[in-house]
């Protein structure tokens, strides 16, 4: 069993640096998700771990071994590709057993392992088929089966669900979670879908432009995003962001004013601010509620009534748009002027560099 250690890992293609020094430690048995927008380097980082991309700088340890220069087959990893990459000319049985064959495993052992994997994935009836005779979900299973028979210490998944339709994706997500529980292996999973990340991960790594933005449990990332990027990326709908400036600093509280709000007092890391600093205020749409008197006043633009909740889009005096997700059903008319309030502890203050400044505990 193996954890991983990434030390200032870097990757360049020619002069273009794609991974810009990633530090990360992954514990044995952890389910880690790399998440970030398309092109941020998730796949590249995963492929560096797999040994499919040469490492330009830094050090990669799997278990206690530095594996920078170790062949993929000797790293104790298995990988599931986005396109599944099944060998089209082999049956499912041979696809799953190919690695064992290459390793010259005895026939009986090979057969047993293939059938074990097939049983775990409930695809015993598919073993004689060719990949072209399988549905998307079935191909996905075969790809996972091929990984399982290798009995790897680390599973690597590169957007494995993105080619499936929505319903199947939810099913497979749950199966993957169960597989992780059953096998107890370390899993590293790449996705650009934050819902997948939130539901699967023990630990999420948010990447942007080749730099790690934040590492933490899903709830940590949701509740205490480290910066504007994470705040915008994690959570759906997106966190509302308003700009303003600091008008007073007092103990653990800062007071912020702007075009859209007047003298809102919040708890934040007061030492990071002085009067006059430009800041951004972040509030999740779900944390807003209607109230007679509140910090935010605006005009309703659009209302979506879903029964159990109501989404309200509001235009603020600065012209900025603002979204609130209200519990229960509310009857609101476009053009109506409404007032929202929120608990000061639910708001996040970001400094001028976009770093979140939480009150020190």
């Amino acid at each position, binding site marked *: 069993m193996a954890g991983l250690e990434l030390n200032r890992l870097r990757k360049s293609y020619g002069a273009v640096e794609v991974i810009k020094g990633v530090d990360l430690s992954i514990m044995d048995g952890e389910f880690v998700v790399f998440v970030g927008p398309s092109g941020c380097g998730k796949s590249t980082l995963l492929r560096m771990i797999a040994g499919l991309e040469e490492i330009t700088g830094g050090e990669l340890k799997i278990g206690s071994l530095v594996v920078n220069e170790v062949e993929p087959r000797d790293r104790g*990893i298995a990988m599931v590709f986005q396109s599944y*990459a099944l060998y089209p000319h082999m049956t499912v049985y041979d696809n799953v057993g190919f690695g064992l064959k290459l390793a010259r495993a005895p026939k009986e052992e090979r057969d047993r392992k293939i059938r074990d994997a097939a049983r775990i994935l409930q695809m015993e009836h598919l073993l004689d088929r060719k990949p072209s005779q399988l549905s998307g979900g079935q191909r996905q299973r075969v790809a996972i089966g091929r990984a399982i028979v290798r009995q790897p210490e680390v599973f690597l998944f590169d957007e494995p669900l993105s080619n499936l339709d929505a319903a199947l994706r939810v099913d497979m997500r749950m199966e993957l979670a169960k597989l992780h529980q059953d096998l107890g292996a370390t899993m590293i999973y790449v996705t650009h879908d934050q819902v997948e990340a939130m539901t699967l991960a023990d630990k999420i790594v948010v990447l942007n432009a080749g730099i790690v933005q934040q590492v933490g449990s899903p709830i940590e990332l949701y509740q205490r995003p480290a910066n504007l990027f994470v705040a915008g990326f994690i959570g759906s709908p997106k966190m509302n962001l308003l700009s303003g400036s600091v008008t007073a600093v007092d103990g653990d509280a800062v007071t912020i004013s702007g075009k859209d709000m007047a003298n809102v007092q919040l708890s934040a890391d007061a030492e990071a601010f002085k009067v006059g600093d430009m800041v951004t205020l972040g509030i999740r749409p779900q944390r807003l509620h209607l109230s007679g008197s509140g910090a935010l006043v605006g005009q309703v633009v659009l209302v979506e009534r879903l029964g159990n909740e109501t989404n309200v889009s509001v235009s603020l005096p600065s012209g900025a748009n603002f979204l609130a997700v209200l519990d229960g059903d509310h009857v609101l008319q476009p053009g109506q002027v409404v007032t929202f309030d929120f608990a000061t502890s639910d708001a996040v203050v970001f400094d001028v560099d976009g770093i979140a400044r939480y009150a020190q505990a």
Partner: protein
Amino acid sequence: MKKQLPLISGIAAITVSFFVFVIPFLFIIFMAFKDRRQAASRDFSWPEGFHLWENLVEVVTTRNWMMITAFVNSSILTVVSVTLLVVLAAMVGFVLARRDAKWNGPIEFLILAGLMIPPAVVPTIWLLQGLKLFGTLHGMILIEVAYNLPFSIILYRAFIATIPRELDEAAIIDGARPLDVFFRVILPLLWPVTVTNIVVQSVGIFNDFTNPLYYLPGANNATVQLTLYNFQSQFNTAYNLLFTNILLITIPPLLVFLFFNRQIVAGMTAGAVKG
């Protein structure tokens, strides 16, 4: 009225094509059935009597069964050259399609040059003599491989470029070494284009006259195309035998045509339509 146009033009086309393209082949067949006396008049007439078998026997046994030697030589030449072409060209195509090295450009230039430039005959003979390959079947095989590599490489490279790289990578993670990746994953996937390649190159090499003429002299080394040529003077006036001979060497391409028409057309038109 309009509906009948395809029919009328079709009948016209069939008639014309019969005279232009079919009659020459019927002529060959008729001649092969005639006896020596009737064949001498070289006209398009129905054979009097059935002499194909005796003509065949004579053609095959003449000059100490030279025809058999020639068929064996041509078969070995074709099979071995084409096998080498398949494996070697696919390997080159694989590396060219997968690597974007800076010397891909020059290699492509050399491949195009190979398609265009006629081989320098006498220097090649001189070189073959130096290598003790002149007039040997294996020398001839290497020549056919060298001359036909460019076409095969182009065919393979285009096809390999359509095979996703993730397949190689999956195999690498499964523990495949480069030779495993190539022989167990890529080469089997190339089967459709390999069939095309085999068919097109076999026909070309089997029908090759010029290169054996230069590089494979001598009666023991005769290939079928050369026997045809050698026989022409020998059967000076025996046209029945000459055409039996032609008929005999037309059979292999005919079989290929019957079974692999589609692959041949695909191979020969490859690359013509892109643009």
